[in-house]
């Protein structure tokens, strides 16, 4: 086996040093009745070339661009990723290193993550961003638990227009804690209905996603104001990080904590993971942030360097009192995002975000012209809801055969929205793709 370097002679001479006759005898401390003496029932080893064939066969069953025109967003977005990003991300010094516990040997990872934290903080308009979390859903759950710790209150209000799967993750995290989770309904404009907040007291946090699950841009400033009137913390979530290349960022709208998904920033969709949980706050709450943080410092000679810092919050120092159990984060995904943000740049991200907006507006307009209803009139970024005539399910199915995925059916998530579909258009969809979609749904 090419991954195992030991020759028979190596094994023999090493066993001799140990005074042991064979490899099995190395396991003398494992009691006989704990041992498995059979053979693992697993497929026999494949050669590298057989594996190539096998994996190629599996991967070819997947519906992906360019053969398929996929108009799905809903928390996972198709964006162009420059070859330079994928290439640099493959550098083995980044890929095969561990969490940078030994900073002198990990300055590459550490400076890169410090830069990621900075760019992420600038994108979100916050003062401090962590080194990353698992995904947008867990980042949101951690943000809400953080709000509970800070305020010492035990109830959170969460918009029903936060991604339904994120809400389920939050529920899973909150279930055993005894903290209460209430959902805020939505208005027929496609925005969160926050009127109920007036009657709620003892709130730790109010969580709003913008652009929300319907693609609509929320009035964050007004919602933040309302939240602060209740003395709760304003938690903003997002699934499409690129939107903040164009829209007002959460920090400028009063967000206290921001937790969302950075997959759009140079990370392939990869069937939903690995992803990039982004979490940020003001300096005020810095010490309550869960997860890794990289800080700038100096070495013995006064030279600038970087280290993991504020580790007393973490589990390995005060085991029972840790702010979270986060150990591994998604460092390489954060690195991809940093490389992507650096490549696109301040000027580029605005143009790119604007193009996303304009393309989605074009499709929206064409669908309207074709006679379909756009039920929510709040402005959107790169995805939006369309109400198709009843029976559209069959058309949707039929289009799959033509290699078009005409959006996500909302009924499983919002039973009241039969025949409503969430459609997404990024820079990767051409005008021709969109025209073809409109032609097909019309016919």
């Amino acid at each position, binding site marked *: 086996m090419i991954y195992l370097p030991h020759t028979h002679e190596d094994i023999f001479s090493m066993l001799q040093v140990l005074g042991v006759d064979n490899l099995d005898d190395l396991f003398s401390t494992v009691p006989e009745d704990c041992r498995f003496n059979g053979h693992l029932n697993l497929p026999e080893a494949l050669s590298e070339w057989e594996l190539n064939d096998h994996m190629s066969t599996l991967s070819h069953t997947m519906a992906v661009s360019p053969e398929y025109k996929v108009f799905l967003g809903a928390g996972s977005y198709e964006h*162009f990723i420059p070859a330079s990003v994928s290439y640099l991300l493959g550098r083995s010094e980044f890929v095969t290193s561990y969490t940078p516990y030994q900073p002198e040997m990990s300055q590459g990872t550490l400076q890169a993550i410090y830069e990621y934290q900075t760019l992420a903080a600038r994108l979100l308009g916050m003062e401090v961003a962590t080194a990353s979390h698992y995904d947008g859903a867990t980042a949101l759950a951690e943000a809400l638990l953080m709000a509970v710790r800070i305020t010492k209150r035990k109830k959170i209000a969460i918009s029903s227009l936060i991604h339904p*799967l994120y809400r389920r993750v939050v529920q*899973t995290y909150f279930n055993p804690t005894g903290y209460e989770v209430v959902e805020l309904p939505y208005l027929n404009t496609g925005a969160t209905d926050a009127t109920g907040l007036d009657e709620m007291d003892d709130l730790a946090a109010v969580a709003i996603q913008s652009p929300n699950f319907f693609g609509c841009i929320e009035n964050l400033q007004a919602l933040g104001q309302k939240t602060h009137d209740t003395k709760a913390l304003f938690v903003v979530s997002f699934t499409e990080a690129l939107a903040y290349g164009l829209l007002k960022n959460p920090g400028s709208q009063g967000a206290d904590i921001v937790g969302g998904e950075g997959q759009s920033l140079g990370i392939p969709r990869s069937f939903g993971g690995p992803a990039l949980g982004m979490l940020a706050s003001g300096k005020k709450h810095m010490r309550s942030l869960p997860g890794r943080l990289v800080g700038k*410092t100096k070495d013995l000679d006064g030279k600038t360097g970087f280290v993991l810092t504020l580790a007393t919050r973490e589990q*390995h120092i005060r085991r029972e009192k840790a702010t979270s159990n986060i150990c591994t984060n998604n460092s390489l995904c954060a690195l991809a995002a940093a490389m992507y943000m*650096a490549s696109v740049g301040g000027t580029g991200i605005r143009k790119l975000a604007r193009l996303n907006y304009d393309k989605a507006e074009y499709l929206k307009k064409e669908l309207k012209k074709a006679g379909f209803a756009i039920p929510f009139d709040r402005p959107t970024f790169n995805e939006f809801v369309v109400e198709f005539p009843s029976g559209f399910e069959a058309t949707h199915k039929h289009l799959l055969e033509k290699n078009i995925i005409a959006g996500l059916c909302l009924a499983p998530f919002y039973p009241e929205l039969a025949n409503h579909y969430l459609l997404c258009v990024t820079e990767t969809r051409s005008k021709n793709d969109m025209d073809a979609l409109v032609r097909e749904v019309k016919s």
Partner: protein
Amino acid sequence: MKESLGTTGLLVNEPLLWEKGKKGRCGFSLPRRDVEPCFLDQELTGEGPDFPDLSEVDVVRHYTRLAQWNFGVDTGMYPLGSCTMKYSPKTNEKQASLPGFTGAHPLLPSSLSQGALKMLFEFEQYLNEITGMHATTLQPAAGAHGELTGMLIIHAFHKKQGSKRSKIIVPDTAHGTNPASISLCGFRPVPVTSNEQGILSVESIAEIMDPDTAGIMVTNPNTLGLFEENIQNIAEIVHAKGGLVYCDGANMNAVMGMVKMGDIGIDVMQLNLHKTFSTPHGGGGPGSGPVSVAKHLEPFLPVPRVVEENGAYILAQDYPDSIGKISAFHGAFGVVIKAYSYIRRMGPENLKKASQLAVLNANYIKEMLKGTLHLPYDRPCMHECVFSDKHQAVQKVATLDMAKRLMDYGFHPPTVYFPLVVPGAIMVEPTETESKEDIDQFIAAFKAIANEARENPDLLHDAPKSCKVKRLDEVTAARKPCLAG
């Protein structure tokens, strides 16, 4: 000793990203604009993020230079204890980057994602076989996330039984994240100390296990690199009082094909694909922490679950007792592809052999270094061995000094000051992918360093000398945090 690996070389300085570039540059090929600009309410727009504008060359040089300041498994031996820094095969990366996988949307209809679902399904079966458990979820995104999932399952199990329990037993040789995972589920961790042999005694568990205890969270093999020999008796005691046994399976690399956790009383465990199954650590993630459970805990696994139905794979949602979702989508699918590829390339015999060689390498190091370094538990170890700096303390040389000096010799240091039960711990896990020559060179380096500790301890106090930076001021970093530029 052969020529030392450690040397100095030309490293190129590189400023922070935003200290480079010029307004108007771009390192991204903007797609052709084929639609007209539409009306956009200026009320909605901000100024846009303050990112630097860099050319493609600027970006490429920047990250190439940064990469050169880093050390990875591909650079050299990285014997971090309890981290299993084994070699990450390159074909795994290739498979994970197949366009059919990278381009796949997580909400694709099942009929259009059969390859991914088949892989997830088969991979769960492989892990069931390796662990001897009944069912597996691949949704947890890291080891600690798996621990949390396991704890949530234990919580849900007791709730379903109508029993309210408030405590979980955690040995002092458990992984660092365990107590926090327990607390997150509203349980109180109850510490228990290991015996003089470095393992749990049956009596110590019998003494504290009571009907208010939801279970025990054992790391096996534990963080001293020792197999918990009394695990079956301990499991019996815990089960008899209605508790469950959680096994932190981060150290599974020691016992693949040798021990099936499901056969020795374990109810639920997590695996770390980025340890045992060779997926790269990426400077701290992404990882993947599947959770495997015994039959009585299957109803509580996260949803959706991949199910085979008439030769096709579907995502099934209907599990009323499920803890819910723990990741937005299917977990770290890209990581699963790599671990799946690893198992397929290895096959059953080589997986077992990997564990045997990992244990061989660790015992060899233990034997060869035990005169040089203090060995607190002198007995056969599993895949890692734990020394301390007791012998060097007389020269006022600490574990940290030896660790830093190893860098000058071209090795990544082992895990230091962990586990907490050994003061000044040096925890070495070579893994099976290190050859005898590389291990011999590591041993020789440690012996040379021990000599230096006697003869010229300042060499150690001043180490490292050949890295990009010298020792860094971590105290000021924490006192006056500068977390963004």
